[in-house]
């Protein structure tokens, strides 16, 4: 049991440390911030730069724009790049989720055409799975793809919660291609050109006022059959592959708000009292730290398993479940320490530039995006603990006959 790099990783770490020192910024340019619009262009530049240096998509094969290295190289990269301000994971959904789908299901020609441009962010990709009536029950999606006489497909329907759809050149879309079979059996996955007339992107205004997601509407959008990913009606298996990658991404990034809370407790004083001296604050700090650190250490256990050739399992759900609720609880607790004036949500007046007020309003989204708390518990119960599924009202029923509440 040790935390030392292998010699290979150690030398890689030295190499990129040097490169990052020369190429990465510790502060974003004036006026650019996370969550803002301006960061998009900055991210495109950064991806381009890493691609040119050969550090894009480290674990992809070289012929597809990667570096032909291992997932552990990626971890080392992530650790080192975290010391800089560059938006290094800005296009993670496209690259992390769509990339493997294209790699796995496309023909060689398409891979060579699409993947290097994805890696360098010359093309931006999004993932089009969720629908208004298919959230937790993703396989209940209704967007229809109908094959035309010339073999191409015509798409009608609506997707929701699509990150980056407004910037995207391509999307990976899951559609229903047969409603007469059970719901998991009638789905097909495609690559979609987002820049065509039948595709309309509409931002979603969130409860916190931000707009990170979109609705995407398809009205006779077209897809050549060559853009089909996998066999017709075999889309569910393909989607699971994509989602597994999402899950692995989640483990590392599920934001729990702990670091910010620790910083606050270390330094803040309220009504003349140092927070660090308050026994209740200390008790909460210890509780959350033990969870936060536990998720961290679980991630290290997973990396160890991966480095020995294992596959990441459903354990990522743990970090997601813990992080969402912690974020929300921390926000509520800190506000209660601030008292009456904690209700002011105004960066100029509020403590910490209103970070905790912001957190109160964005944290509900963390418990929902990428699978709700309840879905995470289902995943843990069924996929890790092997508990039986509930009786399924939709099992073996043709999709069109599944009760939907719409009469």
């Amino acid at each position, binding site marked *: 049991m040790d935390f030392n790099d292998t010699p290979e990783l150690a030398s890689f770490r030295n190499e990129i440390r040097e490169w990052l020192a020369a190429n990465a910024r510790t502060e974003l340019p004036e006026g650019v911030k996370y969550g803002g619009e301006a960061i998009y262009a900055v991210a495109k530049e950064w991806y381009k730069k890493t691609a040119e240096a050969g550090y894009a998509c480290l674990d992809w094969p070289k012929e597809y724009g990667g570096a032909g290295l291992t997932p552990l190289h990626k971890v080392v990269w992530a650790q080192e790049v975290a010391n800089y301000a560059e938006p290094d994971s800005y296009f993670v959904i496209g690259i992390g989720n769509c990339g493997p789908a294209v790699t796995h299901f496309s023909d060689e020609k398409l891979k060579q055409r699409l993947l290097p441009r994805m890696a360098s962010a010359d093309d931006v990709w999004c993932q089009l799975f969720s629908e208004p009536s298919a959230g937790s029950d993703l396989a209940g999606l209704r967007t229809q793809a109908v094959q035309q006489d010339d073999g191409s497909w015509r798409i009608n329907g609506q997707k929701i919660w699509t990150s980056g759809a407004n910037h995207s050149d391509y999307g990976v879309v899951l559609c229903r291609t047969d409603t007469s079979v059970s719901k998991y059996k009638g789905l097909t996955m495609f690559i979609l050109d987002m820049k065509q007339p039948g595709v309309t992107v509409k931002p979603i205004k969130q409860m916190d006022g931000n707009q990170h997601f979109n609705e995407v509407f398809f009205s006779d959008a077209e897809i050549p059959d060559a853009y089909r990913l996998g066999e017709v009606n075999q889309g569910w298996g393909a989607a699971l592959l994509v989602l597994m990658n999402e899950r692995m991404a989640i483990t590392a990034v599920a934001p729990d708000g702990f670091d910010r809370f620790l910083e606050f407790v270390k330094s803040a004083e309220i009504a003349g009292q140092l927070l660090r001296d308050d026994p209740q604050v200390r008790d909460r700090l210890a509780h959350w730290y033990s969870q936060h650190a536990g998720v961290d250490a679980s991630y290290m256990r997973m990396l160890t398993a991966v480095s020995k050739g294992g596959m990441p399992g459903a354990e990522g759900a743990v970090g997601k479940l813990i992080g969402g609720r912690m974020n929300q609880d921390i926000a*509520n607790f800190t506000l209660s320490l*601030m008292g009456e004036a904690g209700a002011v949500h105004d960066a100029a007046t509020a403590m910490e530039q209103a970070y905790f007020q912001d957190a109160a309003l964005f944290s509900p989204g963390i418990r929902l995006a990428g699978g709700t708390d309840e879905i995470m518990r289902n995943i843990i119960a069924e996929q890790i603990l092997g508990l039986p599924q509930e009786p399924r009202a939709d099992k073996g029923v043709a999709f069109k006959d599944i*009760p939907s509440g719409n009469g």
Partner: protein
Amino acid sequence: MNFDFSDDQKLIQSEARKLLNDKCPPELVRNIMEDEQQPYAEALWRQIGEMGWTATAIPEAYDGLGLGYLELCVIAEELGRAAAPVPFSSTVYLFAEAIKLYGSEAQKKNWLPRVASGELIGCLAAAEGFGNGEQEVEQDGAPPGLQANVSSGRLSGTKLGVADGDVANAAVVHAVGPEGEGLYLVDLAQSGVAREAVKSLDLARSYANLSFESAECELLGDAGTGKQMLADLRDRAAVLFAFEQVGGAEAALDMGVQYTNERFAFGRPVASFQAIKHKFADMFVSKELARSNAYYGAWALSSGAKELPLAAARARVSAIAAYDECSRENLQAHGGMGFTWEFDCHLHYRRAHLLALVIGSGYHWRQLLATRLLAAEI
């Protein structure tokens, strides 16, 4: 024993609910949230004045209806259920109550009729910084202390996060005078007063920072008793706010039940999944305990019982917990749509956060409740 509201009171409640259903739909709340030019719903506020709600607990001698606190409680519950974007609580629970309790006859005559008619908005300006004010238990060493001060009848100082401070005509201000802490009545329409509207967690409720520079003011109640008056005032308001919170919690629960009954996943209503059912059961429990504690507070408030401080703290602690849980888990039960601006979940989530902080947070009130419980003969 009759631990329930009377039929007359229930009638007032159902009429209030009808009016608010009609005149205060979620769209109205959302409009106020979106429109920075509209700090509150003026038309609704006018109507509330016309209905006499602001006059409810004001004696007839001052043009009020001369009803009791129980009538005010049921109205508060409905305002909470509708998450109404009006300066009712600041004006009625805090400003008018301060004058009713501590005002001279002249002050009552001057201010209460204008509250009763709905023409006046009032507020209470207490907080100057962060934290929950001083504990009832005296701390060792000097407390941070009040900065706002009055000398020669002129008030100077700054108050943070005053609910409705930007739209109020007058304020009750906690300040140090020549004879110690006191409450002071301040007409806000004067040159010595500067106000800066600030966004609050609940965009449908309007907040401001207030600065006073040699503003004219008059003493309210006995000089030197400001701290105790403020505490008493907050106890009384705690009961009324608890009814708003219970109304809001119930609205959130009802919203969740209805939505998940109608939304299907895996071929059956989302409401039929045990994880959702048990979530709602826990919300119900929390809401029901808060309701019962609020009733007890209402009894104590309306009967002038000596149990009021304990009853108020218990109602507030319980109401904060219930509205937090119900608004938070209703949103969660809605799934992704619950996180959108367009859905109504966040209206209650925001209001729950606001009401959890107004007159002091749960963190503070739990300590207060413990102090009172440990001192009580029960």
